[in-house]
């Protein structure tokens, strides 16, 4: 068994973002962790289910599943592995990606926000995406409705590269209404996920997905977010990675700007009002 095969098996059995296993695999090696698990070197009662799953899993099966979904299985050491994700406290064991994989290592800006944007948010996210594309940045977002879609579309309209980090299997088009958008993204950019093909987007996976968005990009921009919003999590993840976080202000009576104002108020994000502002801020904080 080589490292890639060991990672494939562990990837299929361990949910993304698991701090302990992620640290173990990256500090030792996938092969070692796999063998120790099989040999019962970890708590056998606690990890009984995991060990059982590992014993029945086959690396070939995992890799052929990924292959039949038309995607690539990326592990550290691959030429196209985005090294930036290793800054995470719990780096992904592996990634499944399709499209233009070189896009993953481009300098990129994450644009995130609510699924229910106002006209204002929709416009701003598209404008910022296009503005950064003009400066040869890629745009990373989550492929969801709302701000995410407008950011992806803005990048595509400006003929740029955009990356969707999704919370479901690579062959599951979630949300289904964005199926065409995903196809367009793949033409020049990429779709990435940390979930096995065929698996649905569970609520917990959105949170682990958000940390990947933060890690894949050099800076994060929150366009519109409600008081409780998953985008705020992305912002905090980016801040933990010491990556610049920016937020777009809005009217104080707009519920979809409340999250941005919260970030700005807590000094967790820099207030930006133009693409030029944002570029300057990122340049000064890198």
């Amino acid at each position, binding site marked *: 068994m080589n490292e890639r095969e060991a990672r494939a098996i562990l990837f299929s059995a361990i949910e993304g973002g698991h701090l302990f296993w992620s640290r173990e695999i990256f500090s030792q090696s996938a092969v070692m962790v796999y063998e120790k698990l099989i040999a019962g070197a970890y708590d056998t009662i606690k990890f009984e289910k995991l060990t059982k799953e590992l014993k029945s899993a086959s690396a070939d099966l995992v890799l052929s599943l990924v292959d039949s979904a038309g995607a690539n299985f990326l592990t550290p050491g691959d030429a196209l592995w985005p090294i930036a994700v290793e800054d995470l406290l719990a780096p992904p064991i592996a990634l499944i990606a399709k499209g233009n994989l070189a896009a993953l290592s481009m300098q990129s800006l994450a644009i995130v926000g609510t699924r229910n944007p106002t*006209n204002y948010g*929709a416009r701003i996210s598209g404008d910022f995406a296009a503005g950064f594309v003009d400066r040869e940045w890629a745009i990373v977002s989550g492929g969801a*409705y*709302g701000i995410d879609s407008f950011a992806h579309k803005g990048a595509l309209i400006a003929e740029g590269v955009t990356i969707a980090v999704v919370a479901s299997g690579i062959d599951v088009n979630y949300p289904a209404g964005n199926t065409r958008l995903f196809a367009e993204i793949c033409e020049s950019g990429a779709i990435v996920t940390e979930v096995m093909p065929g698996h649905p987007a569970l609520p917990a996976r959105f949170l682990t997905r958000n940390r990947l968005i933060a890690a894949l990009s050099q800076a994060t921009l929150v366009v519109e977010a409600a008081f409780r919003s998953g985008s705020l999590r992305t912002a905090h993840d980016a801040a933990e990675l010491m990556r610049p976080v920016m937020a777009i202000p809005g009217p*104080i*009576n707009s*519920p*979809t700007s*409340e999250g941005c104002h919260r970030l700005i108020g807590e000094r967790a994000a820099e207030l930006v009002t133009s693409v030029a502002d944002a570029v300057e801020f990122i340049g000064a904080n890198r």
Partner: protein
Amino acid sequence: MSLAQTNSVALLGLDGHVVTVEVDIADGLPVYTLLGLPDAALSESRDRVRAAMVNCAEVWPNRKVTVSLSPAWLPKSGSSFDLGIAIALLSAHGTIPPERIREIVFLGELSLDGRIRSVRGILPALIAAYKSGITIAVVPLANAAEAGLMHNMEIIAIDHLRNVLRWLRTGEREVAQEIDYQWKESDERLDFADVAGQEQARLAAEIAATGGHHILLIGPPGAGKTMIAERIPTILPQLRIEQALEVTAVHSLAAGFTRRSPTSLVAPIVSPHHTTTRVAMVGGGAHAIKPGACSLAHHGVLFIDEAPECPSGVLDSLRQPLEAGTITIARSIGNVTFPAQFLLVLAANPCPCGKFTGRGRNCTCTSAQVRRYLGKLSGPLMDRIDLRVPVDPVGRIDLARSDLGESSAVIRTRVIAARAVAERRFEGLGYSLNSAIPARSLRTVFQPERAAMNFLHDELEREHITARGLHKIIRVGWTLADLHGHGLPTLADIKQAHTIRGGVEL
């Protein structure tokens, strides 16, 4: 004489058919037969007629009575034949001269003591009678105001069978109470001056009234969406006489469900509750096809509050009337077409709990719920909505202001002037409102000025608007140009239209 004949009217939708009521009394066992496809209410007429006659001290013929309503193939329903049957019966019995009643149409339901109760559909029934050459009509006193609209007929409004008989036998009748047939011009109760603040929504209402643009008001509970919607009829131009007749005819068919005065010139407003059914919305029914809310709102406003709460299908059933201005209902007894040209006003909360406004901290809805809520309205129906207007809560400054906003009368003057401009522009084209300009004409004859078009094409290029959105903006732009007195929508008009149209098209 044991045979007599008179007239009544059967209604199929708004179309009336004069029905000949024939009664034959023959020797034989006492039996009563009613021919001519009667429905349940009409079949019961025997007992009403009999009791009414007996209680008016008339003699019920204890012989074989045959009542025939012809044409026999036409299904007939309702209680308005009671009076005609009673009169023909008495005539066949030889107590009323038969010649007199042949040229008269009788409409009315009898109560057991002989009083004549009001019936629905008087106006369309009289129109049908007049068209077939009958000029004298006996109607229930309660329907006198509506019947009085038929100026060219002799209308005899009577409240009791006994009085009808006396009139037929002696020619005497009580001097009818003088009824005021004047058209009523305004409804003084509601006024736009009552609405505090809400400048944007007021402007949107004015645009909607001027150009006939369907409108969606989105805002939290208590912001004033309903207040604004209810006042839109007060700024619509008053109905022309022929329009008012159409409205009264439709409302007459739904008598008992609306309280509209038959002589009102005010545009009607109908606000069905969001739990309404498809049939109630577009019309229907098995025996008598009745107009639905969208036809009752003909030439007026159809206001649906809490629109996303409507069961799916109810709002979509409005698509045909929105497109065609009429609604055709097909039932086994026939096809009926009702007019349905209305201004659609929808109101919606921003989310299921209604609190996703201001800072949005009290809202308990999930992001998906918020998204899905207004999403229920999307699709083909929203294609026909030109204006999506946010209605923010009223601020304390607006409430504290002592000066009132503009009154309906002031706004209506502008609406009428702007509509006149549009009507002149569209002369001979078959439509008169800006919302009806076909897409093709928007790109050719009715294109806005060049700078405005460039602005729109830029927006289209950057995918800020869709092609459909572009058309809507130009239509609203024309309405603004008419209100501002511009011959052609300027860049400013188009930008204002773009702003006020609002909303994200996903």
